[in-house]
Protein backbone atom coordinates (compact mmCIF):
# COMPACT_ATOMS: atom_id res chain seq x y z
CA UNK A 1 0.00 0.00 0.00
CA UNK A 2 1.37 3.42 -0.96
CA UNK A 3 0.25 6.00 1.52
CA UNK A 4 0.46 9.58 0.34
CA UNK A 5 -1.48 11.44 3.01
CA UNK A 6 -0.72 11.18 6.72
CA UNK A 7 -2.18 12.73 9.86
CA UNK A 8 -0.36 15.83 11.12
CA UNK A 9 2.68 14.98 13.24
CA UNK A 10 1.15 16.92 16.14
CA UNK A 11 -1.91 14.65 15.93
CA UNK A 12 0.16 11.47 16.04
CA UNK A 13 2.11 12.92 18.98
CA UNK A 14 -1.19 13.65 20.76
CA UNK A 15 -2.15 10.01 20.18
CA UNK A 16 1.17 8.91 21.72
CA UNK A 17 0.54 11.22 24.69
CA UNK A 18 -2.86 9.58 25.14
CA UNK A 19 -4.93 12.73 24.75
CA UNK A 20 -7.01 12.06 21.64
CA UNK A 21 -10.66 11.36 22.31
CA UNK A 22 -11.93 7.95 21.34
CA UNK A 23 -13.23 8.64 17.81
CA UNK A 24 -10.06 10.45 16.70
CA UNK A 25 -7.91 7.82 18.43
CA UNK A 26 -9.66 5.01 16.51
CA UNK A 27 -9.06 6.83 13.21
CA UNK A 28 -5.39 7.52 13.95
CA UNK A 29 -4.83 3.97 15.24
CA UNK A 30 -6.44 2.55 12.09
CA UNK A 31 -4.00 4.52 9.96
CA UNK A 32 -1.10 3.45 12.19
CA UNK A 33 -1.94 -0.20 11.62
CA UNK A 34 -1.16 0.43 7.93
CA UNK A 35 1.60 3.04 8.15
CA UNK A 36 5.12 2.26 9.36
CA UNK A 37 6.26 5.88 9.00
CA UNK A 38 3.62 7.11 11.44
CA UNK A 39 4.33 4.22 13.83
CA UNK A 40 7.87 5.60 14.06
CA UNK A 41 6.41 8.99 15.01
CA UNK A 42 4.52 7.20 17.81
CA UNK A 43 7.75 5.55 18.96
CA UNK A 44 9.48 8.91 19.23
CA UNK A 45 6.42 10.21 21.09
CA UNK A 46 6.59 7.33 23.54
CA UNK A 47 10.30 7.96 24.04
CA UNK A 48 9.39 11.55 24.92
CA UNK A 49 6.72 10.32 27.33
CA UNK A 50 9.24 7.98 28.95
CA UNK A 51 11.85 10.69 29.39
CA UNK A 52 9.26 13.08 30.85
CA UNK A 53 7.95 10.39 33.21
CA UNK A 54 11.48 9.55 34.30
CA UNK A 55 12.28 13.17 35.09
CA UNK A 56 9.14 13.73 37.18
CA UNK A 57 9.39 14.63 40.81
CA UNK A 58 8.81 11.72 43.21
CA UNK A 59 5.63 11.58 45.26
CA UNK A 60 6.05 9.30 48.28
CA UNK A 61 4.01 6.13 48.12
CA UNK A 62 2.20 4.61 51.09
CA UNK A 63 4.63 2.78 53.38
CA UNK A 64 3.22 -0.61 52.47
CA UNK A 65 3.07 0.01 48.68
CA UNK A 66 6.04 -2.18 47.75
CA UNK A 67 4.99 -4.95 50.14
CA UNK A 68 1.48 -4.92 48.69
CA UNK A 69 2.81 -5.18 45.15
CA UNK A 70 5.19 -7.99 46.12
CA UNK A 71 2.29 -9.88 47.64
CA UNK A 72 0.33 -9.63 44.41
CA UNK A 73 3.02 -10.67 41.93
CA UNK A 74 2.02 -14.31 41.60
CA UNK A 75 -1.63 -13.42 41.16
CA UNK A 76 -0.68 -10.88 38.47
CA UNK A 77 0.99 -13.59 36.41
CA UNK A 78 -1.79 -16.08 37.05
CA UNK A 79 -4.33 -13.52 35.84
CA UNK A 80 -2.50 -13.73 32.54
CA UNK A 81 -0.93 -11.19 30.33
CA UNK A 82 -3.55 -9.29 28.43
CA UNK A 83 -3.44 -10.67 24.94
CA UNK A 84 -2.40 -8.08 22.44
CA UNK A 85 -3.98 -7.94 19.01
CA UNK A 86 -2.18 -10.01 16.46
CA UNK A 87 -1.69 -8.67 12.97
CA UNK A 88 -2.93 -5.83 10.88
CA UNK A 89 -5.80 -7.87 9.64
CA UNK A 90 -6.19 -10.21 12.56
CA UNK A 91 -9.78 -11.07 11.83
CA UNK A 92 -9.45 -11.53 8.10
CA UNK A 93 -11.76 -8.61 7.46
CA UNK A 94 -9.34 -6.61 5.35
CA UNK A 95 -9.56 -3.84 7.94
CA UNK A 96 -7.04 -2.38 10.36
CA UNK A 97 -7.21 -3.98 13.80
CA UNK A 98 -8.66 -1.04 15.75
CA UNK A 99 -11.64 -1.06 13.42
CA UNK A 100 -11.90 -4.81 12.84
CA UNK A 101 -12.07 -5.38 16.59
CA UNK A 102 -15.01 -2.97 16.85
CA UNK A 103 -16.95 -4.22 13.86
CA UNK A 104 -16.48 -7.96 14.07
CA UNK A 105 -18.05 -8.37 10.62
CA UNK A 106 -16.95 -7.39 7.09
CA UNK A 107 -18.00 -4.00 5.75
CA UNK A 108 -20.46 -5.64 3.37
CA UNK A 109 -22.36 -7.24 6.24
CA UNK A 110 -23.04 -3.95 8.02
CA UNK A 111 -26.41 -2.31 8.10
CA UNK A 112 -25.95 0.88 6.08
CA UNK A 113 -28.42 3.74 6.33
CA UNK A 114 -28.97 5.65 3.13
CA UNK A 115 -28.35 9.35 3.41
CA UNK A 116 -29.38 10.50 0.00
CA UNK A 117 -28.22 9.71 -3.47
CA UNK A 118 -25.14 7.53 -3.52
CA UNK A 119 -24.29 7.97 0.15
CA UNK A 120 -24.81 5.60 3.08
CA UNK A 121 -23.50 5.73 6.63
CA UNK A 122 -23.03 3.36 9.54
CA UNK A 123 -22.47 4.91 12.97
CA UNK A 124 -20.07 3.11 15.32
CA UNK A 125 -20.79 3.03 19.03
CA UNK A 126 -18.50 4.94 21.39
CA UNK A 127 -18.12 4.77 25.13
CA UNK A 128 -20.47 7.02 27.09
CA UNK A 129 -17.72 9.43 28.04
CA UNK A 130 -16.32 9.97 24.53
CA UNK A 131 -17.22 13.22 22.77
CA UNK A 132 -17.56 13.38 18.97
CA UNK A 133 -18.70 10.80 16.47
CA UNK A 134 -17.33 7.87 14.56
CA UNK A 135 -18.95 7.00 11.25
CA UNK A 136 -18.34 4.77 8.30
CA UNK A 137 -19.34 6.63 5.15
CA UNK A 138 -19.85 4.82 1.88
CA UNK A 139 -20.00 6.72 -1.39
CA UNK A 140 -21.08 4.94 -4.56
CA UNK A 141 -18.54 5.26 -7.38
CA UNK A 142 -18.86 8.64 -9.08
CA UNK A 143 -20.86 10.30 -6.27
CA UNK A 144 -20.32 14.00 -5.64
CA UNK A 145 -20.68 14.98 -2.02
CA UNK A 146 -22.06 18.43 -1.18
CA UNK A 147 -19.44 21.01 -0.13
CA UNK A 148 -19.17 21.24 3.63
CA UNK A 149 -16.95 22.60 6.37
CA UNK A 150 -16.39 21.43 9.94
CA UNK A 151 -16.92 22.84 13.39
CA UNK A 152 -14.13 20.80 14.94
CA UNK A 153 -11.33 18.58 13.76
CA UNK A 154 -12.24 15.76 11.42
CA UNK A 155 -10.05 12.81 10.52
CA UNK A 156 -10.95 10.58 7.58
CA UNK A 157 -9.23 7.28 6.83
CA UNK A 158 -9.90 5.69 3.44
CA UNK A 159 -10.60 1.98 3.83
CA UNK A 160 -11.57 1.07 0.30
CA UNK A 161 -11.80 2.85 -3.07
CA UNK A 162 -10.71 6.44 -3.53
CA UNK A 163 -11.98 10.01 -3.74
CA UNK A 164 -10.65 13.36 -4.88
CA UNK A 165 -11.13 16.85 -3.53
CA UNK A 166 -9.24 20.14 -3.61
CA UNK A 167 -6.54 18.58 -1.38
CA UNK A 168 -5.71 15.71 -3.74
CA UNK A 169 -6.51 12.05 -4.29
CA UNK A 170 -7.16 9.87 -1.26
CA UNK A 171 -6.99 6.06 -1.48
CA UNK A 172 -6.71 3.11 0.90
CA UNK A 173 -4.74 4.00 4.03
CA UNK A 174 -4.66 7.73 3.30
CA UNK A 175 -5.75 10.20 5.93
CA UNK A 176 -7.45 13.53 5.40
CA UNK A 177 -7.25 15.74 8.44
CA UNK A 178 -9.48 18.77 8.17
CA UNK A 179 -9.41 21.60 10.65
CA UNK A 180 -12.18 23.96 11.57
CA UNK A 181 -11.76 26.23 8.59
CA UNK A 182 -11.42 23.64 5.86
CA UNK A 183 -14.20 23.11 3.37
CA UNK A 184 -14.24 20.36 0.81
CA UNK A 185 -16.46 18.70 -1.77
CA UNK A 186 -15.22 15.14 -2.25
CA UNK A 187 -15.95 13.26 -5.45
CA UNK A 188 -15.79 9.46 -5.33
CA UNK A 189 -13.69 8.05 -8.16
CA UNK A 190 -15.46 5.93 -10.73
CA UNK A 191 -15.04 2.17 -10.69
CA UNK A 192 -15.37 1.25 -7.02
CA UNK A 193 -17.39 2.45 -4.05
CA UNK A 194 -15.35 4.40 -1.52
CA UNK A 195 -15.64 3.54 2.15
CA UNK A 196 -14.12 5.84 4.74
CA UNK A 197 -13.87 5.94 8.50
CA UNK A 198 -14.75 9.46 9.58
CA UNK A 199 -14.04 10.68 13.10
CA UNK A 200 -15.29 14.07 14.14
CA UNK A 201 -14.80 16.24 17.15
CA UNK A 202 -17.75 18.51 16.45
CA UNK A 203 -20.78 18.82 14.22
CA UNK A 204 -20.42 19.50 10.53
CA UNK A 205 -21.14 23.06 9.43
CA UNK A 206 -22.45 23.76 5.95
CA UNK A 207 -21.07 26.95 4.38
CA UNK A 208 -24.12 27.78 2.34
CA UNK A 209 -27.31 28.11 4.41
CA UNK A 210 -29.20 26.24 1.73
CA UNK A 211 -26.82 23.36 2.14
CA UNK A 212 -27.85 23.04 5.78
CA UNK A 213 -30.82 21.29 4.29
CA UNK A 214 -28.34 18.63 3.27
CA UNK A 215 -27.38 17.86 6.84
CA UNK A 216 -29.61 14.81 6.87
CA UNK A 217 -27.50 13.42 4.04
CA UNK A 218 -24.70 12.67 6.42
CA UNK A 219 -26.96 12.21 9.38
CA UNK A 220 -25.13 14.82 11.41
Amino acid at each position, binding site marked *: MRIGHHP*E*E*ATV*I*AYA*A*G*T*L*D*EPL*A*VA*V*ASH*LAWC*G*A*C*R*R*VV*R*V*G*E*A*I*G*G*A*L*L*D*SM*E*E*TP*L*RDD*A*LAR*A*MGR*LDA*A*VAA*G*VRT*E*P*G*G*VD*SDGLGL*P*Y*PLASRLGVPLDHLRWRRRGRGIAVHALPLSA*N*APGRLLLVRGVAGTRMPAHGHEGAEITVVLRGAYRDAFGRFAMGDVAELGEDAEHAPVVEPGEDCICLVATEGRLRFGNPLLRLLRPILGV
Partner: protein
Amino acid sequence: MADLLSRVATGRDRDAFAVLFRHFGPRLKSYMLRRGADAETAEELVQEVMLAVWAKADRYVPARGSVAAWIFTIARNRAIDRLRRQPPVRFADIDDHDGATDEPDGEARLMEGEMEMRVRGALDALPDGQRRIMGLAFLDGLTQAEIAVRLALPLGTVKSRMRLAYRKLRASLAEYMEDSR
Protein backbone atom coordinates in the same frame (compact mmCIF):
# COMPACT_ATOMS: atom_id res chain seq x y z
CA MET B 1 17.02 -0.32 33.75
CA ALA B 2 16.90 -2.71 30.80
CA ASP B 3 19.05 -5.19 32.75
CA LEU B 4 16.69 -5.06 35.70
CA LEU B 5 13.69 -5.66 33.48
CA SER B 6 15.46 -8.50 31.72
CA ARG B 7 16.11 -10.13 35.13
CA VAL B 8 12.40 -9.83 35.88
CA ALA B 9 11.51 -11.34 32.50
CA THR B 10 13.90 -14.26 32.50
CA GLY B 11 14.46 -15.00 36.18
CA ARG B 12 11.30 -13.65 37.83
CA ASP B 13 13.79 -11.73 39.96
CA ARG B 14 11.93 -10.07 42.84
CA ASP B 15 14.89 -7.97 43.93
CA ALA B 16 15.17 -6.46 40.46
CA PHE B 17 11.45 -5.76 40.53
CA ALA B 18 11.79 -3.99 43.87
CA VAL B 19 14.48 -1.70 42.43
CA LEU B 20 12.22 -0.86 39.48
CA PHE B 21 9.31 -0.28 41.84
CA ARG B 22 11.29 2.10 44.04
CA HIS B 23 12.43 4.06 41.01
CA PHE B 24 9.23 4.24 38.98
CA GLY B 25 6.54 3.94 41.68
CA PRO B 26 6.88 7.48 43.09
CA ARG B 27 7.17 8.95 39.57
CA LEU B 28 4.11 7.05 38.41
CA LYS B 29 2.21 8.40 41.39
CA SER B 30 3.15 11.95 40.37
CA TYR B 31 2.01 11.16 36.83
CA MET B 32 -1.37 9.81 37.92
CA LEU B 33 -1.93 12.80 40.22
CA ARG B 34 -1.13 15.19 37.38
CA ARG B 35 -3.56 13.36 35.14
CA GLY B 36 -6.25 14.05 37.72
CA ALA B 37 -6.31 10.99 39.99
CA ASP B 38 -7.01 11.45 43.71
CA ALA B 39 -4.34 10.12 46.07
CA GLU B 40 -6.11 6.81 46.65
CA THR B 41 -6.66 6.13 42.94
CA ALA B 42 -3.11 7.18 42.08
CA GLU B 43 -1.78 4.71 44.62
CA GLU B 44 -3.91 1.91 43.15
CA LEU B 45 -2.91 2.79 39.57
CA VAL B 46 0.76 2.60 40.55
CA GLN B 47 0.08 -0.93 41.79
CA GLU B 48 -1.67 -1.86 38.56
CA VAL B 49 1.07 -0.44 36.33
CA MET B 50 3.87 -2.12 38.29
CA LEU B 51 2.04 -5.45 38.36
CA ALA B 52 1.66 -5.20 34.59
CA VAL B 53 5.40 -4.53 34.36
CA TRP B 54 5.99 -7.76 36.28
CA ALA B 55 3.54 -9.80 34.23
CA LYS B 56 4.57 -8.45 30.81
CA ALA B 57 8.32 -7.96 31.32
CA ASP B 58 9.12 -10.56 28.65
CA ARG B 59 7.38 -8.42 26.04
CA TYR B 60 9.80 -5.53 26.44
CA VAL B 61 12.27 -5.26 23.54
CA PRO B 62 15.22 -2.99 24.38
CA ALA B 63 16.03 -2.15 20.75
CA ARG B 64 12.65 -0.49 20.41
CA GLY B 65 12.80 2.05 23.18
CA SER B 66 13.74 2.74 26.77
CA VAL B 67 12.24 0.99 29.79
CA ALA B 68 10.80 4.36 30.84
CA ALA B 69 9.08 4.69 27.44
CA TRP B 70 7.62 1.20 27.76
CA ILE B 71 6.37 1.87 31.27
CA PHE B 72 4.98 5.20 30.10
CA THR B 73 2.77 3.40 27.56
CA ILE B 74 1.38 1.09 30.23
CA ALA B 75 0.71 4.04 32.56
CA ARG B 76 -0.81 6.10 29.74
CA ASN B 77 -3.25 3.34 28.83
CA ARG B 78 -4.32 2.92 32.46
CA ALA B 79 -4.81 6.68 32.75
CA ILE B 80 -6.97 6.82 29.61
CA ASP B 81 -9.04 3.91 30.86
CA ARG B 82 -9.50 5.01 34.47
CA LEU B 83 -9.13 8.78 34.46
CA ARG B 84 -10.45 9.73 31.04
CA ARG B 85 -12.96 6.89 31.21
CA GLN B 86 -12.50 5.99 27.57
CA PRO B 87 -11.02 2.78 26.22
CA PRO B 88 -7.35 3.09 25.28
CA VAL B 89 -7.26 2.49 21.52
CA ARG B 90 -4.44 0.14 20.64
CA PHE B 91 -3.39 -0.50 17.08
CA ALA B 92 -1.81 -3.84 17.85
CA ASP B 93 1.56 -3.57 19.47
CA ILE B 94 3.94 -1.54 17.36
CA ASP B 95 6.30 -4.42 18.00
CA ASP B 96 4.01 -6.85 16.23
CA HIS B 97 4.16 -4.81 13.05
CA ASP B 98 7.70 -3.64 12.87
CA GLY B 99 8.95 -7.19 12.79
CA ALA B 100 11.89 -8.74 14.51
CA THR B 101 14.96 -6.62 15.10
CA ASP B 102 18.41 -7.99 14.42
CA GLU B 103 19.84 -5.91 17.25
CA PRO B 104 21.20 -8.31 19.86
CA ASP B 105 19.46 -7.68 23.18
CA GLY B 106 22.72 -7.24 25.07
CA GLU B 107 23.92 -4.41 22.87
CA ALA B 108 20.48 -2.87 22.76
CA ARG B 109 20.37 -2.88 26.55
CA LEU B 110 23.60 -0.89 26.60
CA MET B 111 22.13 1.63 24.17
CA GLU B 112 18.92 1.90 26.11
CA GLY B 113 20.37 4.17 28.77
CA GLU B 114 22.13 6.24 26.15
CA MET B 115 18.92 6.76 24.20
CA GLU B 116 17.11 7.87 27.31
CA MET B 117 19.86 10.43 28.06
CA ARG B 118 19.65 11.78 24.52
CA VAL B 119 15.92 12.40 24.75
CA ARG B 120 16.27 14.02 28.14
CA GLY B 121 19.04 16.27 26.85
CA ALA B 122 16.94 17.25 23.85
CA LEU B 123 13.93 17.94 26.09
CA ASP B 124 16.03 20.17 28.33
CA ALA B 125 17.28 22.05 25.28
CA LEU B 126 13.78 22.88 24.01
CA PRO B 127 12.58 26.47 24.29
CA ASP B 128 10.36 26.90 27.37
CA GLY B 129 7.19 27.30 25.31
CA GLN B 130 7.71 23.98 23.52
CA ARG B 131 8.76 22.07 26.62
CA ARG B 132 5.75 23.36 28.54
CA ILE B 133 3.40 22.16 25.82
CA MET B 134 4.98 18.69 25.77
CA GLY B 135 4.56 18.49 29.54
CA LEU B 136 0.92 19.55 29.38
CA ALA B 137 0.24 16.90 26.72
CA PHE B 138 2.28 13.95 27.99
CA LEU B 139 2.02 14.47 31.74
CA ASP B 140 -1.18 16.42 32.35
CA GLY B 141 -2.97 14.62 29.52
CA LEU B 142 -4.44 17.81 28.06
CA THR B 143 -5.75 17.85 24.47
CA GLN B 144 -4.36 20.42 22.05
CA ALA B 145 -7.56 22.47 22.45
CA GLU B 146 -7.23 22.35 26.26
CA ILE B 147 -3.60 23.42 26.04
CA ALA B 148 -4.60 26.32 23.78
CA VAL B 149 -7.13 27.49 26.40
CA ARG B 150 -4.71 26.98 29.30
CA LEU B 151 -1.94 28.99 27.65
CA ALA B 152 -4.25 31.46 25.85
CA LEU B 153 -2.66 30.55 22.51
CA PRO B 154 -4.28 29.89 19.14
CA LEU B 155 -4.76 26.18 18.46
CA GLY B 156 -2.51 26.47 15.40
CA THR B 157 0.34 27.72 17.56
CA VAL B 158 -0.02 24.79 19.94
CA LYS B 159 0.12 22.37 17.00
CA SER B 160 3.10 24.02 15.37
CA ARG B 161 5.05 24.09 18.66
CA MET B 162 4.29 20.40 19.20
CA ARG B 163 5.51 19.65 15.71
CA LEU B 164 8.70 21.67 16.19
CA ALA B 165 9.41 19.98 19.51
CA TYR B 166 8.77 16.56 17.98
CA ARG B 167 11.18 17.23 15.12
CA LYS B 168 13.99 18.25 17.46
CA LEU B 169 13.45 15.21 19.65
CA ARG B 170 13.30 12.94 16.63
CA ALA B 171 16.62 14.36 15.45
CA SER B 172 18.17 13.52 18.82
CA LEU B 173 17.11 9.90 18.35
CA ALA B 174 17.98 9.67 14.67
CA GLU B 175 20.90 7.29 15.05
CA TYR B 176 18.83 4.88 17.15
CA MET B 177 15.89 4.63 14.82
CA GLU B 178 15.24 4.05 11.17
CA ASP B 179 14.46 7.22 9.29
CA SER B 180 11.08 8.63 10.11
CA ARG B 181 8.82 10.16 7.55
